């Protein structure tokens, strides 16, 4: 939304971060989603993560496709530019935006229809190209805006609100993203802010493609008995593979984990993700084992959450393409146009 002077009616004692901003400064417009929608909890988690990291909203770009999930970027970070693009095509717009200016932090917000249905091609190629983006899928297994059709992440045999059974096997986005080479893959639950906020913080600081698949129940169309994306079902079947802290550069690692279960993953800029492995079998640093772990959990009907995979050594898209460090949108005539004398040489080569 176009800027308006924000009313200065904050509580005077609101907590402030390093930039002197309160959580309110990271808010957006009032949500128009259904009361109790998981997506609103995700928006709150995004606000919390950005607040904790003391990010400047104006250095963030929020991009989305079409659907309930894709509306949600309006509900956080008012001072960030937003782009509600076309259905399933946010990854390409984000890729272009990133090529135009690598300095901004890109947050992609999509849903399971937008990503696993119409947009699966673009999603896969963005992951494969290692686009530097935090790609959030607000995954509720259903098409909410068109009133409750199954999406491609809905489990086989799950029931719709109207009692209809889903006939097809689901697409598991994290498994697919790991397979495609995404550098950071996590899954969380909109109802688990303690897990989600550090995961978001780590993803936003990761340079490369970071997917967070967030199970986000649709209270209107997919929160009934027989649904595998309901609050109750996820609470019962959620198994966290790791607990993590994101530690910015220069800060002390405070989390104390059990001896032997702690892993420190340094990121490109020196920040560290400290990770406590909650499962002995699961290894988020090994692509093959991560995929194996996800496959086994699926067989057992469990939903693995936490940081599922991380490869801190990936190069992002701009780096792969060897693009200048100065954002491309800042170059001027003198940098870009070879001029008359070079043109004379070209003419000479063509006659």
């Amino acid at each position, binding site marked *: 939304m176009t800027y308006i002077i924000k009313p200065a009616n904050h509580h005077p004692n609101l907590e402030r971060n390093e930039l002197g901003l309160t959580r309110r400064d990271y808010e957006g417009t009032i949500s128009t989603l259904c009361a109790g929608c998981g997506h609103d909890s995700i928006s709150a988690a995004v606000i919390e993560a950005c607040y904790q990291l003391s990010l400047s909203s*104006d250095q963030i770009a929020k991009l989305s496709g079409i659907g309930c999930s894709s509306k949600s970027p309006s509900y956080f970070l008012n001072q960030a*530019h937003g782009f509600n693009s076309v259905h399933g*095509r946010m990854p390409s717009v984000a890729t*272009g935006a*990133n090529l*135009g200016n690598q300095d901004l932090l890109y947050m992609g917000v999509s849903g399971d229809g937008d990503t696993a249905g119409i947009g699966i091609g673009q999603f896969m*190629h963005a992951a494969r190209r290692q686009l530097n983006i935090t790609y959030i899928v607000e995954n509720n297994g259903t098409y909410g805006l068109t009133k409750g059709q199954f999406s491609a992440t809905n489990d086989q045999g799950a029931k719709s609100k109207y009692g209809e059974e889903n006939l097809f096997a689901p697409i598991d986005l994290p498994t697919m993203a790991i397979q495609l080479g995404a550098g950071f893959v996590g899954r969380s639950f909109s109802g688990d802010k303690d897990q989600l906020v550090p995961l978001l913080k780590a993803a936003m600081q990761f340079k490369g493609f970071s997917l967070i698949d967030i199970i986000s129940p649709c209270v209107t169309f997919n929160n009934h008995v027989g649904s595998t994306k309901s609050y109750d079902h996820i609470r019962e079947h959620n198994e966290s593979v790791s607990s993590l802290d994101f530690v910015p550069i220069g800060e002390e690692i405070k989390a104390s984990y059990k001896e032997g279960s702690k892993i420190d993953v340094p990121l490109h800029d020196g920040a560290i993700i400290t990770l406590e492995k909650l499962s002995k079998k699961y290894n988020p640093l090994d692509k093959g084992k991560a995929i194996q772990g996800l496959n086994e959990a699926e067989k057992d009907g469990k939903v693995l959450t936490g940081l599922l995979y991380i490869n801190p050594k990936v190069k992002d898209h701009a780096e792969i393409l060897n693009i200048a460090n100065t954002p491309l949108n800042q170059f001027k005539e003198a940098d*870009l146009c070879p001029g008359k004398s070079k043109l004379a040489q070209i003419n000479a080569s*063509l006659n």
Partner: protein
Amino acid sequence: MNKISSTNEFVIKFANVNGSGSASANQMFAKGVFRSGIPVSPKNIFPSNIQGLPTWFEIRVSAKGYLGRKAGIDFMVAMNPQSYNQDVAELNSGGYLLYDSSWKRDFNREDINIIEVPLTALCVEEFPNPKTRLLFKNLVYVGVLSNLMKINKNIFIELIHEQFQGKEKLIAPNIQALELGFAYAEKNLNDACDISVKEEDLTKGMILTNGNNAGGLGCVYGGATVCAWYPITPSTSLAESYKKYCDQFRVDEKTGKNKFAFVQAEDELSSIGMAIGANWNGARAFTATSGPGISLMTEFVGLAYFAEIPVVIFNIQRGGPSTGMPTRTQQSDILSCAYASHGDTKHVMLIPADPKECFEFAADSFDISDRLQTPVFVLSDLDIGMNDWTCPEFEWDDKRKFDRGKVLSKNDLDELDSWGRYLDIDGDGIPYRTLPGTHPEKGAYFTRGSSHDEYARYIEDGEINAKNLSRILKKFAGAYSYLPKPTYKQDTNASSKGLIYFGSTEAAMQESLDLLSSFGYPIDAMRIRSFPFGPEVWDFIDQHESVYIVEQNRDAQMRILIMAEGEINPLKLISILCFDGAPITAKFISESIIEHLDEQNISQTAEKIK
């Protein structure tokens, strides 16, 4: 035996097998004539195939500068037995047929001159390596032609040196092949051919290049930093040209890093999405495609139109509909581009007529798109894009600045109390934009394809939406002042008949008009170079009793556009349509018009008699 006798005015055609390395030899022949100072127009007529199918290369040589395609061949180099029958049939009476007489043949035509050269036998004798010897066959016939047509052999030797720069080993055997053919003709083919090339000075200040090479270069000069594309004939070489020139001019000497991004996307939806994303961020970006790609891109085109994001789309048109004829030319995407996407949409189109205009319009398109904050289509075609044209040298003014249009800087925003992304402050329908990351507190907004008010807020109020749509139309109505104006073939109109044409038809137009004049039908001609049309187009139509519209498509798409946009009486606009995929000829244009005029005269006379 009748022998065609001509100096500097003829058509030569090469019939080859695709993938046999003939294209570069044929191009060398064309360039040899060009370097002799005579304008040429080579046309590659190739199959959608990698190896094995027939392929042709047609060169019109014309000191008069008539460079449209001309039916009827004066000299045929028939290197492909598969297409002998067809190739022989195309020869004009008195024409020449050069073939590989290592295997002798009878051709059932008494009225042509057969020139026998045992090309394969000569190569087998001269070159020991069976793998490469067939490639040299092509250079041997270039040598033969150099002798027969009296083209300075040293020009070809120079061209071989240029072509194999960096692969020096290949220079000597290629020259050897050229000399082999030259010597054979010298010894055996005296007086076999009365077609010759006499050196002139007619190509001074001219270059020989294709529109895709020029278009890619124009994007570099126009400041494009992102090219996102998907391979599709005949547009691929435009993207590749951009990359080639970027590698030359846009790599930072100190860091070795690129001041450009070149991304081969997974499909056309993605390529235009990337181009739009980059432009949204203020980096000039484009995509290059052809008809099928345009069809795929249309949803995104509507988004860029409605959200008012600049983006440049090159459409190198090919034969449609559907997959159609990917390697043949047409002008059949006029309507699909002008009105691309659902809902009420209209788009700016630039229509270049030769490689020089491809260069200029490519560079201009970014200024126009930034200025108008809307998609701009550059509508070239396969004939301009992939064939080499004799055209004036490229020009550039070093004082030229990019027109980035109405973009607010941090200082601008600091001085503003309020701002709305879609407010029409200046009355021209063009609002002010901001780029992400410009200002810490001001200027952020939500770009969207859903209906929005002047402050970019989502709305479902029909009146507000209608007002916004009307403003965008106002912007479009004023767009012509930023676009290239029509050009004319006459200083002042002198005929009651007018003719409108555009794009690659330019090559055949002067010859068409000269032919019509010689038959007593002088006609005024105007070339449209952009859409939306400016007042010049309506004036020209007003000033003539009737107007022919020459197009290379079936449905008279330009005529439909003119009728619709100008509310012109359909009876006034007469279509001349060529859509067989071959570049339109002057013969076709002039004969079609004469036929129409004759019919009209007959019916007028009949009317009088009644």
